[in-house]
């Protein structure tokens, strides 16, 4: 028995030893293969910091703290290590604040010093961190132009990087065209997260992974490069490459115990320095974004992006494309209303500029200069309101209020411009004028005001529509949940557009969901408007839409080219245009056009339905307006969509309260808990 046990124990040990040898040999093989990339190969790091002084939109002390604390201290740390190349991305307004304020003289000098010795790379494309995918190309272009002016003013234009990461990692297919605008000067590369690239990749196609891709816009013949960034290091372009700190620079070294936000924890910053020192001691090279791009190009690590990525943000699954910024409300904002209010401000400013352009020759240089400064102030206020912080990830009430106020102030500047003009041009001295941006026509008599549509029948019901429309809302009190619905058969005034020669009859659907009328009351939690075909053979698997920044073109996209879960695709539709072809190759079909100046929200796109939803509280009354056309050509539908949303006739006035779109401020004032 004892002998038996001894034999068994010996056998047990032998088993252990043999298995351990086997395991170890297998593991050493695997580890040697993986380790060869890390141990033997050269390694490099791209250090990147994204700064946003509008992190708390409307709080000037926060802006100041961001500049004095994380921005300045980070630069001070890098100054001690000349070999550590790094990239800072910020809005041009931050550069303006630093360079235009004598209190920041030392910060300005440090910035210049680091830029001039080519250690710090400055990424800066827009004056304000606009949620650009929600608005048409002209807004983006204006923003680019202001940034150009700012950088040029401080001698930084030719020193800015050719790469750019947009606020909240925004990406739009149309960037390939817009970044070829003269206002974008040298910018030719957009940073996109690995999650965006992989999340929207056709799951049935295995595309090779590259650090850089070329993105083409065949619609315009333009292209840009897309630079992939990832949170995990990987072997690419001949290096074991990592991105070091890709997040918000403001909170990188934040002292969580400090009484105020954005105060730097010096110990944390020291640890970061140690981290980079450790890398340096291992022979790690430090690249700026553009240096990394150059290297990748040199070694040919460049592919072609052969699939379509709809407008989205970084962490595209977590934020569901544009859902977080244009459908997910919170107790301080209604995204759809915020975006629509900004959109309306665009029409007001553009209309005012048309009037000024027409009559400026008759003005004194002094008045012209006043008006032009008003225009600049109005545009800057409005562009700041369009920044992504006023909706999106948990905006504070102050951010919503600032955006509201900025738009109101922009309107006031417009009314003052019209007052100056009215004082000198008698024909403008009327209560209201209407401006038609397409023909640049100005009407000063109400009887001459044009209407794009004529009502044919206003006694229709939902059943009369060519599509099934399902409405739903959830909340604590059912009494308030009943939406008001109005359906009309209308005729588009075809004389308005020579290209639309045929009579265009369509349906206008107005739905108003009552809001809680209190910013802190989310009891009316959700609404949805779902469109589905009556004919069960038709669906939304193939649709056409206008990619943001390319509002005059359309792109066919296929729902089965994307994951369904966990990726939910929300389309923002900057010109409200949605077209469902009769069959995948047809140029005729059904169009649903959303009036984005009423309520500008994203669409959830699924195989069998398209749905407008708003979640997390409805506060103001939610007025959604749609135009539905059946058996219409894609060109007619697109022209109509652009007419309604991009170039609608707009009423402006020297009295701010008479400006079209200003009436919402009476509603804003009535809502509870308006002020932060």
């Amino acid at each position, binding site marked *: *028995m004892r002998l*038996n*046990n001894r034999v*068994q124990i*010996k056998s*047990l*040990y*032998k*088993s*252990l*030893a*043999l*298995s*351990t*040898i*086997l*395991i*170890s*040999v*297998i*593991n*050493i093989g695997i*580890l*040697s293969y*993986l*380790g060869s990339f*890390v*141990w033997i190969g050269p390694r490099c*790091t791209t250090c990147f910091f994204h700064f946003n002084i509008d992190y708390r939109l409307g709080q000037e002390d926060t802006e100041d703290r961001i500049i004095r604390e994380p921005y300045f201290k980070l630069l001070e740390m890098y100054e001690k290590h000349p070999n550590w190349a790094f990239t800072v991305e910020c809005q041009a307004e931050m550069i303006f604040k630093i360079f235009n304020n004598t209190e920041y003289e030392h910060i300005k000098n440090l910035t210049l010093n680091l830029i001039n010795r080519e250690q710090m790379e400055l990424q800066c494309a827009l004056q304000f961190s606009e949620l650009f995918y929600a608005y048409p190309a002209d807004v983006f272009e204006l923003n680019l132009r202001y940034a150009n002016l700012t950088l040029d003013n401080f001698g930084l234009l030719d020193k800015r990087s050719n790469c750019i990461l947009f606020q909240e990692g925004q990406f739009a297919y149309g960037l390939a065209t817009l970044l070829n605008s003269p206002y974008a000067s040298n910018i030719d590369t957009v940073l996109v997260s690995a*999650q965006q690239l*992989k*999340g929207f990749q056709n799951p049935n196609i295995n595309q090779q992974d590259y650090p850089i891709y070329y993105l083409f816009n065949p619609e315009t013949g333009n292209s840009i490069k897309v630079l992939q960034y990832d*949170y*995990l*290091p990987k072997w690419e372009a001949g290096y*074991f*490459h*990592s*991105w*070091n*700190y*890709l*997040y918000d620079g403001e909170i*990188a*070294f934040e002292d969580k115990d400090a009484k105020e936000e954005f105060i730097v924890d010096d110990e*944390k910053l020291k*640890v*970061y320095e*140690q*981290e980079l*020192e*450790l*890398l340096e001691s*291992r022979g790690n090279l430090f690249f700026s974004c553009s240096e990394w791009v150059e290297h990748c190009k040199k070694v040919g690590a460049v592919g072609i992006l052969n699939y379509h990525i709809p407008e989205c943000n970084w*962490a595209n*699954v*977590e934020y569901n494309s544009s859902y977080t910024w244009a459908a997910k409300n919170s107790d301080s904002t209604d995204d759809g209303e915020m975006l629509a209010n900004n959109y309306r401000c665009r029409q007001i400013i553009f209309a005012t500029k048309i009037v000024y352009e027409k009559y400026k020759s008759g003005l004194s240089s002094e008045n012209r200069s006043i008006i032009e400064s008003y225009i600049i102030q109005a545009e800057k206020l409005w562009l700041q309101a369009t920044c992504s912080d006023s909706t999106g990830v948990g905006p504070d009430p102050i951010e919503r209020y600032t955006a509201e106020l900025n738009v109101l102030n922009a309107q006031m500047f417009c009314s003052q411009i019209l007052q100056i003009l009215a004082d000198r041009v008698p024909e403008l001295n009327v209560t209201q004028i209407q401006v038609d941006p397409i023909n640049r026509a100005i009407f000063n008599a109400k009887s001459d005001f044009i209407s794009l549509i004529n009502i044919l029948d206003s006694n229709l019901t939902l059943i009369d529509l060519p599509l099934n429309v399902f409405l739903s809302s959830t909340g604590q009190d059912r009494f308030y949940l009943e939406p008001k619905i109005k359906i009309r058969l209308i005729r588009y005034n075809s004389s308005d557009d020579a290209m639309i020669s045929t009579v265009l009859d369509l349906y206008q659907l107005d739905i108003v969901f009552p809001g809680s009328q209190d910013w802190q009351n989310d009891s009316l939690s959700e609404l949805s408007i779902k469109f589905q075909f009556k004919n069960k053979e038709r669906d939304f698997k193939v649709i056409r839409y206008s990619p943001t920044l390319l509002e005059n073109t359309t792109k066919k996209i296929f729902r089965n080219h994307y994951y369904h*879960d*966990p*990726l939910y695709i929300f389309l923002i539709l900057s010109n409200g245009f949605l077209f469902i072809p009769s069959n995948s190759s047809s140029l005729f079909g059904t169009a649903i056009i959303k009036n984005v100046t009423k309520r500008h929200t994203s669409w959830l796109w699924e195989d069998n339905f398209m749905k407008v939803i708003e979640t997390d509280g409805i506060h103001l009354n939610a007025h959604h307006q749609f135009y539905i056309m059946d058996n219409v050509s894609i060109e007619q539908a697109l022209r109509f969509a652009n007419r309604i949303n991009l170039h609608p006739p707009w009423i402006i006035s020297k009295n701010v309260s008479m400006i079209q779109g200003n009436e919402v401020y009476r509603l804003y004032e009535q809502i509870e808990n308006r002020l932060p």
Partner: protein
Amino acid sequence: MLIKVKNAIITLKYSLYLATGLYQLTIGLFINLLVNFLMGVSLIVLYPYINPNILMIFQILAWILIAFGCYTLIFPFIKDCIKQWKYPFYIIHLLLKLSMGLTFLLIPFGIFLGISLRSELKSSKVKKNYETEKRNKYACPYTMFTLIPGIFHILLGLLVSSFLVPIILEEIDFLFPYVNYTLINLLNIYGLISIISGSLLVICSIWTNSLIQLEKTYNFTRFFKFIQILIIIGSIGLIIIYPFGTYFGITLLLEFYRLKQ
């Protein structure tokens, strides 16, 4: 020298040295790889939990393990040369024995699971090779050895299926596409196999003696067959779950077929 190596592989004592050395080397290399990989990640987001100092400590640990591993590997061959040092040799030998013991503690549970299953099979095989009385005594020492891994695997399976999967699922928005539904399904299968294998082990460990007694009294050959099938299922599960346990799984299956023949 070649003869010595050959001897080292086939001799139990030398096998243990070789195994320990290689295993320490593996762990050392793994930690080293991990540290080098983490250096590229933005560690500051993990502050204060992971910082350069902690990385350096792990780096030193990795180098110690690698050094020890190498030394243990070559120890049987240089033993005679350094034996004359007496006192230092005594300390080195002690350290090696200690590290060997610690190393075997680090070996994944899968190996023990494999051994346990193997022993279970042996306990059924015994019927043909030993007398029933001896068989009982043979099976008894392995009961705890089987029961503990069995419980461990049930807990592991529950942990994976009930905690890990829901947590990952919650974070899939952030981790996608690295973490996707395919991975979650695989983890669920892993958890399920672990639970099934664990349950089989627990059943085997508790019932082995009873089964043997039952078979002795009533000649329940079918029960024994059933247990053998359970063991095979368990071993296949083991192969799927633990690549490390593959060796044992295969050995187990081979032994089963030998038994049949």
